[in-house]
């Protein structure tokens, strides 16, 4: 399968006062389209950094990050915004739902920002909510939902624009085992079924086990598990 994501000798150093912190050292890796890849590593090892680089939220100190045939780090901020909007879905550890929007509105938001017709967006959002089992909570505000429920809403939101790539940063980090299991199950099914690529950052063995492939960051390099 062709590589959707390619890290080409990516280095990332954070200048923190007098002692810069090197997070990635000439890391290279490839992710094929449709693959589910988990990235593991210790806290502060740079797992999230990798995700941020793919999403164009951060720029490498050197090296390129390719998404298809586009070098994400060379795009303008506006191009990156559009790229994210149209081709990526995000699931975060802390859910990042907009507290002042209802559940349905949260899910619909990316589509509205992209200029999709309100009715079509609503229908799609409701369908997704139904798929994650929360259609009945469409009018509730996020603070009324449990952690697991919020994450499921976030999942629906991530998929509302039908992006080919889903990026998940510690999706179960804030959930108990059962809720985490439910969310992972949904994430797995919904991405696999649609042939989407899923790049998953986690420190959980169980979560990583669902992936097709696991990459580990050690000492700034990406290595395959032994």
């Amino acid at each position: 399968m062709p590589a959707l994501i390619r890290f080409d000798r990516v280095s990332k150093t954070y200048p923190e006062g007098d002692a810069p912190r090197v997070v990635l050292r000439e890391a290279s890796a490839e992710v094929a389209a449709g693959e589910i890849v988990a990235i593991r590593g210790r806290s502060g090892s740079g797992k999230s950094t990798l995700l941020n680089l793919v999403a164009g939220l951060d720029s490498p100190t050197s090296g390129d990050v390719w998404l298809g045939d586009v070098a994400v780090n060379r795009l303008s901020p506006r191009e990156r915004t559009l790229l994210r909007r149209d081709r990526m879905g995000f699931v975060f550890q802390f859910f990042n739902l907009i507290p002042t929007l209802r559940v349905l509105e949260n899910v619909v938001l990316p589509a509205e920002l992209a200029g999709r017709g309100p009715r079509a967006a609503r229908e799609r959002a409701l369908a997704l909510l139904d798929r994650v089992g929360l259609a009945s909570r469409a009018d509730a505000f996020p603070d009324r939902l449990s952690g697991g429920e919020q994450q499921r809403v976030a999942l629906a939101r991530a998929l509302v624009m039908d992006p080919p790539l889903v990026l998940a940063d510690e999706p179960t980090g804030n959930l108990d085992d059962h809720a985490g299991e439910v969310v992972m199950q949904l994430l797995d099914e919904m991405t696999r079924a649609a042939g989407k690529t899923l790049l998953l950052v986690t420190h959980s063995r169980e979560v990583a086990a669902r992936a097709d492939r696991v990459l580990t960051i050690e000492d700034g390099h990406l290595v395959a598990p032994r």
Partner: protein
Amino acid sequence: MLPRTLLATGLRDLLRRPLHTALLVLGVALGVAVVVAIDLAGDSARRAFARSADAVVGRATHVVLGGPSGVPVAAYRDLRRHESVQAAAPVVEATAVSDTLGRSAVRLLGVDPIAEGPFRDHLGGGSLRAPGFGRLFTEPRGAVLSATLARRHGLGPGDALSLRVDDRRLELRVLGLIETAPDRAAALDGLVLLDVGVAQELLGRGDRLTRIDLILAPGASPAAIAAGLGPGLRVAPASEQAETAIQLTEAFHLNLGALSLLALVVGMFLIYNTITFSVVQRRAVFGTLRLLGATPRQVFALILVEAAAAAAVGTLAGEALGYVLGQGAVRLVTRTINDLYFVLAVGDVPLTAGVALPGALLGLGAALLAALPPALEASRVEPIAALRPSTYESHARRLLPRLASAGALLALGGGALLAVTDGVPAAFGALFAIVLGVALAVPLLTATFAARAAAPMGRVAGALGRIAARTVERSVGRTGVAVAALTTAVSVTVGVSLMIASFRATVVNWLELTIRADLYVGAPSGGGVRATPAIDPQLPARLAALPGVEAIETIRRVRIASEVGEIALGASDLGAAGAGLYRFAAGSDPDPWARVEQGALIVSEPFAHRHRLAPRGASVLLQTDRGRVRFPVAGVFYDYSTEEGLVLMGRATYERHFEDRAVSSIALHAAPGVDLDALASQVREAATGRALLVTDNRSLKREAMRVFDRTFAVTHALRLLAVVVAFVGVWSALMALHAERTRELATLQALGLTPGLLRRLGLLESGLMGALAGLLSLPLGALLAAILVDVINVRSFGWTMELRLEPGLFVQALAVSLAASLLATVYPLWRLSRREVAAALRQE
């Protein structure tokens, strides 16, 4: 541009933060309310004045005016027969104070009921058919009032009405009431009408009128008519007197307007701080929005929409509040105008579109303007902020030097402007530029100062001291703004306080110099600066004859026409003694008083400044009873009694050129050892039956200072406002600061920072900020004061004032700065100590 859901994100946030939204609304409401209130007051005062001027002038096209003695009836007789005169009406006018009408000043208007028809309708176009009409003529003390005025004081036909005019007590009787349409009632408020002949008799005017109203035939030439009158009379357009009076209050209205704009600025500051704080708190949400595809422009617009929504509510509240405040403001404004300038009675105070609309536009505009910087900040939030807090500080720190250089440039530019230009608006502009310039440089100074303070603070307060200093330095994006706000507010306070103190000291010195007699006799009958009460010319001699009186001096104050318009003229019979009472500005004649004895004039500083007269070689053309005469000016003297300016001549000169022989006030010097109270009683006895006020030296000085203090009472509000601003500035900066530092502080708490130590840390931080602001405000405040005293005051009025840098005020400034800063810490600290450690740490 803003999809519905995106809008909901912002607008619902307003509803979820009632306190924050309330502050926003308050900020707008405050600004709008003050603008509207003051605008309302000024607008009402102006309209009331126009109405009352109309009521007095009526449909006259021109008026015949004379000198202090008025216009002889013979002129009226002749004008009635003049072919260019379509109608003429004799008028006697005087200002009076009435106890029956609540001690307010009123205008007495003596008119001829049968000549009034073409001019004014107050007498209902009376005719012989009207029952009782004749009583206006025949009752020796009959008067007529508007029904509204009468009912307000419980007066009806037949009731007594006591008045004091000049030095006379009048007991009038209410003959009848004028019923007017409600919208005209205000015009007649404050007027007491009499028959003109009765008025002449009661006021002892002989055959003199105050003026003759004319309606000239179209194409008539006022100059031709004037040529046929005596040398002391002139024909002026009917609107001239009203225009003169309005000009007197222009400066007053300008100052009020400036004050209202200041309130708006304060409101804007409140809005800026509040929105900034909410932006800081919602950084993660903005990051998420950006991540999900919102453009920076959309986020920018969202903040502005939030601000506009709150501003809309705030504007409505402000208009309502402003209307209520306006009622009170009207009373204050009216009272001041009455005190200082002329009689004014304001009836209703409606909120017209002309006042409401600008207030609303200003409110909305100011809110949007104040929301711009935080909106910009919000739009610059990177999507990555969704995951992790800000890079704001580094961004801010890069800006500091540039900001400081811009500030320095601005301040220098202001200084240059001051040096190069001449006028008052330029001076205010320069002042503003200097203050703003320094404010822009303060953040850099804060960072630098805080960095250098780390070590000494560590020595004094241990680790906490160092942390406090470093925090102030590192978060200079927040702390710098707080210190800048505090510095600006306190230095403005210091500057204005110093200016007022200097002015006050100058006035006190001047009073010491000029008020030297033991007793003063005057006839206060209202009307402010345009009143010219006349005391019986026989009285000075009678008083001089009293045992115990060593010497008397009299002064006559009148208003006459001159080549520069209507002016205040004083005639003094001081003789040689006068030399000691007046101090002259440089450039005056070496012995001005001797020249005065010979017939020259001396003018006060504001007069010379206003009319651009050199101290020497200048001359002024005055309209005297003998015609127009040009008088040389011998010198410019210091006088602080009126910003309009005063012209002084010797009594002998006055009597040579004018027929008037009255005096306006008498100063008595007691012989040594005489009991002043006893002498005062004797004086009062000698003046039995007259409405005279006898004041002693000390009381007079006290009263003068009371008027001075009352005039500047408004600035107390200004200073209070400044302190409130400072407080708010520090408070919201600290709130924003803590919101950004929660993680760091939580870490410290986990490491063992007890709530008590946390409080100490907070106090150390704000104490440092307060101290810095206080120190910076001292030189800035002194500079402001210097500009106010030596530039703005001089350019506005021409007064010489000595700048006094009273140390007490500086100490006060430091104290206020520290206090505001420390107090502002209380709530943010309290909130902070209640947050859960775990929740904050979770972001790791």
